[in-house]
């Protein structure tokens, strides 16, 4: 008996008071109660405690419990159908929190708008550079590296330039569309016209020696510009300067503006007879323009934004091209460069390039669209070519075609007073030419 710890003794008495004691323990407790008055007192208190606990205060029945509970259960069911990531009852709190967060962020953004804009500008520049570096990799080869003076004049006046004497592939610019202009590289489909060589130009327009010097310089610049406007990368990327048609206007304008009025009229006649896509409108007695103005305008434009088309993508990208170095390289290693160009031409002729398998791509932000042609590619630019400054006093425009006149081309020459246009008819455009537009 004496081996019972106080804790064990209390446990046995507690079980005894509950009437749930094992038989062997009951004997122990009964012996304890018989011999120990304190145990008897403890049991008495335990029974008294149980009696008091049994009579402890109870709540009155709640008859409205189910009504209130069913309302909460309905709420729970609706909450289960809630697709929001939080209970609906928190919507006001969440809305308030979101509003506060937006307000704080807005305040911070407005307070620090310059650093933020600089950050994003830097980021977008970085992305742009990454794209640019990725789309035209490796060495590039100008498609028109050895354009001579006759070819430069031919392209400037007529917007067409064959790759080579032995190929049918031609670079064309076409401003006859209503919504902008096109640059095409493809098989020649136009009627072959008698080429306007520089000698023929001199014979018909009859420029003075000084004027010839200016025109020579203009054509030299055109040669350089053509060489840097159409490039092919070693990874089969094709890059074209979308401002290329601007060159035609510059050259035609430059030539026309350095001529005296009688010479201009002869020049316009030469253009019209040979169905040039450009018409020269001029003040009848406008004097010749200083050549420096023409050169400054022509020199100012150096292409850097190119439409780059690869077998995988079509983007407008900045291409840093060191034409001078390229030209020096070509002069230094003319044999190898010519051989590369020859291979390139053969591949183009054979249709080996995969550009034509690319889907049409529209670059809305740049108003440009790329269309694969059957044999090569076409780039459409949805804006007009840049107008030349007014000081030229000579306006070169795409030669318009009136539908009602059965395909005739009209050249409008504006007289200073009265301003009514004088219309002169020129021979109609042949069907073969129409089909390309």
């Amino acid at each position, binding site marked *: 008996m004496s081996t019972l710890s106080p804790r064990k003794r209390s446990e046995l008495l507690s*079980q005894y008071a509950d009437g749930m004691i094992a038989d062997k323990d009951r004997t122990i407790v009964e012996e304890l109660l018989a011999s120990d008055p304190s145990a008897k007192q403890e049991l008495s208190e335990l029974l008294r*405690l149980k009696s008091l*606990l049994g*009579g402890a205060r109870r*709540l009155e*029945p709640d008859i409205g419990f189910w009504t209130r509970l*069913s309302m909460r259960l309905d709420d729970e069911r609706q909450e289960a159908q809630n697709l929001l990531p939080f209970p609906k009852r928190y919507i006001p709190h969440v809305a308030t929190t979101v509003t506060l967060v937006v307000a704080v962020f807005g305040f911070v953004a407005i307070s620090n708008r310059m650093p933020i804009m600089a950050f994003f500008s830097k980021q977008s520049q970085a992305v742009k550079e990454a794209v640019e570096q990725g789309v035209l990799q490796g060495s590039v080869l100008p498609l028109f590296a050895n354009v001579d003076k006759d070819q430069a004049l031919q392209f400037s006046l007529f917007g067409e330039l064959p790759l080579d004497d032995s190929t049918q592939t031609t670079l064309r610019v076409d401003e006859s569309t209503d919504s902008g202009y096109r640059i095409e590289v493809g098989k020649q489909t136009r009627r072959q016209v008698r080429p306007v060589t520089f000698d023929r130009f001199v014979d018909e327009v009859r420029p003075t020696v000084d004027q010839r010097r200016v025109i020579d310089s203009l054509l030299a610049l055109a040669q350089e510009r053509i060489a840097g406007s159409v490039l092919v990368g070693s990874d089969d990327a094709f890059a074209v300067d979308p401002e290329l048609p601007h060159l035609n206007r510059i050259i035609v304008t430059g030539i026309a503006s350095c001529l005296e009025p009688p010479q201009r009229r002869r020049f316009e006649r030469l253009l019209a007879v040979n169905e040039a896509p450009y018409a020269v409108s001029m003040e009848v007695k406008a004097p010749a323009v200083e050549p420096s103005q023409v050169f400054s305008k022509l020199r100012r434009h150096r292409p850097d934004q190119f439409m780059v088309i690869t077998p995988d993508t079509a983007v407008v990208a900045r291409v840093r091209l060191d034409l001078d170095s390229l030209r020096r390289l070509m002069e230094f290693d003319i044999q190898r460069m010519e051989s590369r160009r020859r291979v390139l031409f053969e591949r183009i002729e054979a249709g080996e390039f995969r550009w034509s398998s690319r889907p049409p791509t529209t670059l809305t932000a740049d108003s440009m669209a790329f269309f694969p042609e059957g044999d090569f590619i076409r780039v459409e630019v949805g804006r007009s070519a840049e107008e030349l400054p007014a000081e030229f006093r000579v306006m070169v425009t795409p030669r318009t075609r009136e539908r009602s006149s059965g395909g005739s081309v009209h050249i409008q020459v504006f007289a200073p007073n009265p301003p009514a246009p004088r219309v002169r008819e020129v021979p109609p455009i042949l069907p073969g030419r129409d089909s390309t537009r």
Partner: protein
Amino acid sequence: MALPGYGGMWEETARGSSASRPIVMTSIPQQRVVSQPGSYAQLDDEALILLFQRGDEHAYRFLVERHKERIRNLLFSMFHDPAVVDDMAQEVFIKAYQALPRFRFESSFYTWLYRIAVNKSRDELRRRKVRRFLTFQPLDEGMEKNLHDKMAHRPESHDAKELIGMGLQLLPEKFRTAIVLKDLEGLSYEEMAVVMRCEIGTVKSRLSRGRTMLRKALEPLLKEGAQ
């Protein structure tokens, strides 16, 4: 004959007349005769749970009506505060409503319900303890002093039920739960072990220790009564 609202789950037995024939729940392996047609009140807890689990949410109302007072009084004994009882009892029955589809009949429904109520009480007491700690409030010193004062000066003049309730509040939660389940709710040791999720030996120990502590707190009252 399928009963309205029973979805064809019930069918007549071969016994009895059509007016008073007992209905057998055929989907339960151990077939039990449970009720007259349409009388939910006469169905036992298990039958009501089966009905609920088969989509008859109306059955849950009878489970609630049957057990709500036990749960309310259990919570009142635990907190001695009528203000918290209603809200907590509703939470207990909402929890039961959510968990009832997964009830596996391994214990009686009211034992299972008590377990939910005890868990809720434990969570609430912990929450209060944290709240007191965060607000630097003393732990039940006011209640203890109040009870001590009443015990010191003629305890027989005070309401014994009130003193018992105050004494219970001074006990730690696990001892309080044991006393409430045994002495107020009348559960057996085995049922208490299920509710408290512990061994029967632990139940006995907690009950004894809780009673010892409560005896000490209410000593004048008990001595006066014992004499």
